[in-house]
C-alpha cells in the first residue's frame, strides 16, 4: 500500500471508511464499533510506521472471535442483522491486511456495499443524501489511489470525485425512472430491529399512554378535495368487542363476518350499509407498523387494491403486515348508517360482560337504565356524569388494580381516552345497550405546504360505539365530554396545563409551536419528506407505468428495457461529446466564428481554406481566383484584419456580418 498508493489516498480512504461506517455503528452493538476503531487505529499506527502488520494467527483469531460474537449476539445467522454485521466487521478487518494496491481497491469496493446497506435501514431523504455523500467520498479515495506521487493535491480527489458523480447523475435518473421495477428488494429480509409500533389489538386500561409519549409519524393523509372538519377526523383502526374485566380485545373470527375482498363475492353484511352523504377520497401513506390494520375515516368503502380487505367492523385490513411504507387509496362517507338491523345473536355479542366484577358500575348502570326512557338517554346520562363529576383527563393516571372500572368511575376519576372509552362501553353493556370500543387515531396536524394531514403516535385515541335501534352504530366519544379540547385542538392543547405532552422527550420540534418560523420550517421538512416518500421511495411499477404512459401511450412493461438502453446510450454519447469538445477544441472566439462563416462561403465554391492558410493570405488567394469579387473580399479582409488583429473596436461585428451577407448575396445570384 505504502509503496504503491500515495499517502493522502490512505487518508482519504480512512475518512471515507469512517463516514460510511458511522450510521451503521450507531445502529449496531457497541462491540462492532470497538472492533472497527481498533482496526482503524492499528492501520494508522502502521501508516506512522509505529506498528507492523499483524501475522496470520492474529488475523485468524480476530476473524474467529468476530464470528463467534456475531452468533452470540443474534443467536443465529438467519436474519439480516448478523450478515450486515459480518460485512461491517470484514470491512474493518480488511484494513489490517491492506498491503498491496489490490487490497485497497477491495476495501473501497466493499465500502460501496456497506454504503448500500444504509438503505436497508433508512430510505429517507436525509439518509439517502448521506449515502450519496458516502459514495462520493469512496470515489474520492479511488481517485486518490490513482494520484501521481509528484502531484499530490489534497483536495483534488474530492473535486474529481464530485465531477464524476455529477456526470453519473443523469444516468442514475434514467435508471431510476426507466429501469423495470422488480419486486421490492428491501422488504424481503426479516429484520430484528423492526419492532411492532402503533396501536395494538388489545386495550388494557392505560396501554395507550405509552403511545401518547411518542412523536413518531403514524401516517399522512392527502385529501383530493377539501378537508373534513376536525371533529370528523376519527381514524378507525380496530374494533374491540371482547372484555374480560380488564382488557378489551378483538372478536374471534366468524365465517359469516368474513372480509369483503375485491374480486370475490360480496358478504351479506355489506348490503346493510347506507351512505347518507357524498363520498370523499383520500390517500394514506402509512409508516411501517408491522401490523395489518389500516386507518381510515368512517364509513369506509371497500378498497380497490387487491392487498386490502374490508372487515365486518367497517375498517380496512391489509393481508400482509405493513413492513415497509404503504400507500393506499380510500373513499369514505362521513354520514352513514350501518347494521340498522343487527340480529339478536349479534346484539348479544356486544352485550357480553364477565359474569361478575365491578359491582358498583353494574349497579350504577342498572339505576340509570331504570330511570331513563331510551337507550340514547342512558348514554347521555353517562356522558353527563363524566362531565359533571370531578373527572380529569390526564396522561398521568393512577395505577389501577383489581376492579378497574369501579376504581376508575368511583375512585380515582383520573384517566385518558382508554379509561373513558373502556368504562363507557362497560356501563353501556351493563345497561343492556350493545357497545364496543374502537381504537385508532383522532385528529392530526394539517400541513398547509404539502396539503395533507399528518397523524403521529400521540394522536392515538380510543372511543366507543353504541348500537341504537333504527340508527345502527353511533360513535360516542366520552373523552369529548371530559376534555373537549382534546378533540377540537389535539393532545398538546389538552395537556397544556399539565405539561405532560411528550414529557419524556426533552427537546422536540413539536413543542415549539410558539415560534412561527420553526413551525413553518417543520412543515417544509415534513412536506419534503412526504414528496420524497411518495415519488422517490414510493416509485413503484404502477407509478412508473403511469408516468411513462403520459409520454408514450400504451407503453408495455417490456418496452421499458429498450427505452432504458436507448436512453442510457444516449446519455453516455452526450457526455462523451461534451468531454471531447471541452478537451480537444477550445471555445471558438467570436472573430473565429465570423471568419469561418466567410471561409465556408467560399469553400462551397471550391476555395476551401487550408488549415495553415492565414486570413490575409487566404483573402489574397480568393481575390486572385475571383477577381470580380476582389473589391468586396478586400473590403471584408481589411476590416476583419483591423478588427480582429488590430483590435480596432470601431469596426463592429455587425458590420463584418453585413459584409459577409453582402458577399453571400452576390455569390448566390451571379447575375448581379
Amino acid at each position, binding site marked *: 500500500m505504502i509503496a504503491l498508493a500515495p499517502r493522502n489516498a490512505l487518508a482519504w480512504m480512512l475518512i471515507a471508511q469512517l463516514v460510511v461506517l458511522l450510521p451503521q455503528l450507531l445502529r449496531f452493538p457497541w462491540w462492532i464499533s470497538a472492533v472497527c476503531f481498533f482496526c482503524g487505529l492499528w492501520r494508522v499506527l502502521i501508516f506512522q510506521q509505529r506498528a507492523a502488520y499483524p501475522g496470520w494467527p492474529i488475523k485468524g483469531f480476530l476473524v474467529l472471535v468476530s464470528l463467534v460474537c456475531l452468533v452470540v449476539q443474534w443467536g443465529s445467522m438467519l436474519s439480516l442483522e448478523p450478515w450486515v454485521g459480518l460485512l461491517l466487521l470484514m470491512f474493518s478487518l480488511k484494513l489490517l491486511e491492506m498491503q498491496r494496491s489490490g487490497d485497497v481497491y477491495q476495501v473501497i469496493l466493499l465500502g460501496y456495499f456497506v454504503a448500500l446497506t444504509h438503505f436497508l435501514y433508512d430510505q429517507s431523504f436525509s439518509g439517502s443524501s448521506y449515502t450519496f455523500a458516502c459514495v462520493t467520498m469512496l470515489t474520492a479515495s479511488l481517485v486518490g489511489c490513482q494520484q501521481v506521487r509528484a502531484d499530490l493535491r489534497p483536495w483534488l480527489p474530492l473535486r474529481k470525485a464530485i465531477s464524476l458523480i455529477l456526470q453519473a447523475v443523469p444516468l442514475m435518473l434514467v435508471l431510476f425512472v426507466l429501469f423495470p421495477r422488480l419486486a421490492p428488494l428491501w422488504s424481503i429480509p426479516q429484520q430484528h430491529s423492526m419492532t411492532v409500533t402503533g396501536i395494538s389489538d388489545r386495550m388494557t386500561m392505560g396501554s395507550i399512554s405509552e403511545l401518547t409519549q411518542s412523536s413518531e409519524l403514524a401516517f399522512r393523509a392527502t385529501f383530493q378535495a377539501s378537508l373534513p372538519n376536525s371533529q370528523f377526523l376519527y381514524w378507525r383502526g380496530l374494533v374491540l368487542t371482547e372484555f374480560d374485566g380488564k382488557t378489551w380485545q378483538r372478536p374471534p373470527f366468524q365465517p359469516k363476518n368474513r372480509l369483503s375482498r375485491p374480486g370475490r363475492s360480496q358478504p351479506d353484511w355489506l348490503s346493510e350499509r347506507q351512505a347518507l352523504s357524498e363520498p370523499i377520497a383520500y390517500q394514506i401513506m402509512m409508516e411501517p407498523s408491522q401490523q395489518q390494520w389500516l386507518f381510515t375515516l368512517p364509513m369506509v368503502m371497500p378498497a380497490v387494491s387487491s392487498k386490502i380487505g374490508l372487515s365486518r367492523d367497517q375498517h380496512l385490513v391489509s393481508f400482509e403486515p405493513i413492513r415497509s411504507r404503504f400507500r393506499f387509496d380510500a373513499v369514505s362517507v362521513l354520514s352513514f348508517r350501518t347494521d340498522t338491523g343487527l340480529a339478536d345473536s349479534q346484539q348479544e355479542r356486544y352485550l357480553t360482560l364477565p359474569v361478575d366484577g365491578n359491582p358498583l358500575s353494574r349497579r350504577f348502570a342498572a339505576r340509570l337504565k331504570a330511570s331513563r326512557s331510551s337507550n340514547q338517554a342512558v348514554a347521555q346520562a353517562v356522558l353527563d356524569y363524566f362531565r359533571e363529576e370531578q373527572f380529569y383527563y390526564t396522561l398521568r393516571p393512577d395505577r389501577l388494580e383489581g376492579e378497574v372500572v369501579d376504581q376508575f368511575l368511583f375512585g380515582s376519576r383520573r384517566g385518558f381516552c382508554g379509561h373513558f372509552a373502556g368504562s363507557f362501553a362497560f356501563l353501556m353493556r351493563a345497561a343492556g345497550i350493545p357497545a364496543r370500543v374502537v381504537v385508532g387515531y383522532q385528529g392530526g396536524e394539517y400541513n398547509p405546504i404539502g396539503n395533507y394531514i399528518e397523524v403521529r403516535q400521540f394522536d392515538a385515541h380510543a372511543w366507543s360505539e353504541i348500537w341504537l335501534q333504527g340508527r345502527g352504530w353511533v360513535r360516542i366519544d366520552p373523552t369529548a365530554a371530559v376534555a373537549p379540547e382534546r378533540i377540537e385542538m389535539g393532545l398538546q392543547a389538552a395537556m397544556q396545563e399539565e405539561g405532560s405532552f411528550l414529557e419524556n422527550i426533552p427537546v422536540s420540534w413539536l413543542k415549539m409551536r410558539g415560534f412561527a418560523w420553526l413551525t413553518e420550517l417543520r412543515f417544509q421538512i415534513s412536506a419534503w419528506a412526504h414528496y420524497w416518500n411518495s415519488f422517490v421511495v414510493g416509485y413503484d411499477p404502477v407509478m412508473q407505468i403511469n408516468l411513462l404512459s403520459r409520454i408514450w401511450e400504451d407503453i408495455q412493461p417490456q418496452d421499458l428495457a429498450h427505452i432504458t438502453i436507448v436512453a442510457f446510450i444516449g446519455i453516455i454519447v452526450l457526455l462523451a461529446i461534451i468531454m471531447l469538445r471541452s478537451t480537444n477544441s477550445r471555445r471558438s472566439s467570436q472573430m473565429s466564428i465570423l471568419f469561418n462563416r466567410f471561409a465556408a462561403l467560399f469553400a462551397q465554391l471550391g476555395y476551401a481554406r487550408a488549415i495553415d492558410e*492565414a486570413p490575409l493570405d487566404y483573402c489574397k488567394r480568393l481575390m486572385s481566383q475571383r477577381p470580380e469579387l476582389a473589391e468586396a473580399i478586400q473590403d471584408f479582409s481589411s476590416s476583419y484584419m483591423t478588427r480582429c*488583429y488590430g483590435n480596432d473596436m470601431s469596426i463592429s461585428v455587425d458590420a463584418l456580418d453585413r459584409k459577409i451577407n453582402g458577399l453571400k448575396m452576390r455569390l448566390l445570384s451571379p447575375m448581379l
Partner: protein
Amino acid sequence: MDVDIRQNLQNTLDTLNSIVLGKPREIKLALTAVLGGGHLLIEDLPGMGKTTLAQAMSKVLGLSHQRIQFTSDVLPSDVLGVTVFSQIDGEFSFHQGPIFCNLLLADEINRTTPKSQSALLEAMEEGSVTTEGVTRELPDPFFVIATQNPNHQTGTYPLPESQLDRFLLRVQLGYPDSASERILLESGNRRNLIASCDAVLDGEKVKALQHEVSLLRVSEELLDYLQRLAEFTRQSEALRYGLSPRGVMAVLSAAKAWAYIAGRDYVIPEDIQAIFSSATDHRLRDQSGKTMSTHLSIGEWIVTQVDVIN
C-alpha cells in the same frame, strides 16, 4: 509611426539588399532579429556570404562593432577582456575585450571550445560581463550576430540546445539565384562595397525602433494562434520536446518586428508564419523523421499542422 524612422528603415533594407544580392527575405529576417531585441545566428556552409551580411549590417546600423574570429584556441579572456598589471601606474587595470561594443560579430562560433562559447553566450543573456568578481555592463544596444558552419563539418563543437535557445532567430542563407550570382561574378568582391557605404542608423535610432516594435498591438486571436502552435509542439509525438516559454516569447517578438517592417502597427498570423521556422528550427528536434519526408523544416511543418482560425 514616425515617417523619418520608417524611411531610415527602408534605406537600411535597400542598402543591405544592394550588398547581399538576391536575399531580401533573409536580410529582413536579420533586421527582424535586431528590432526584436535579440541575437542572430547565421548558419550556412563556408563562402555563402554569412560574414558579408554580418559586416554589412554592422556598418549600416551605424553601431560600434567588433569582430571575433573563433578558433579552437580562443580563450574566454580573448572575448571578455583581461586584467593586466600596468608598470606605469603600478596597479592592475582591466582591458576590455572585443565584447564591449554595440554589435559583436562572432564568426564561426562553433569552431571554438564550449568554454569560450559559454563566456560569450552568458554575456548575451545577461547584458553584462563578470570577471574577477566585478560586473561590468555592456553597452546598450548590444547584439551578437554569430555565424556558424553546419554541425556536420569537421572541427566544430556543436552549440548545446540551451545556448542555441539564446538566439532569437537563426537564418540560413543558401545558394544565390543565378541572376544574383551573375551580378556577383561581374562586379567582384562585395567587401569593398561595405567599406564605401554609409551608416543609415545609429545606436539611438535602433533603440527607438526597438521601442516602437514593442508597442505593437497583439490581439487575443493572435495569442490564441500562438498558443495553439506552442501547444502543438508540446503535444506532438513527432517532436522530442516542445517549445519553451522563452521560445514562444521569441516567436512573438520576432513576429512583432516583422509586422513593423511590413508597415503595420499590429501583428497578424502571417507575421508569425513568416518568422516561425527561423525562430523555432534551432529550438526543436525532430524525432520521428516526419518533417524530413515533407521536405519542410520543423518549424514549417508545424505551421502546416495548426489551424490558423480556431
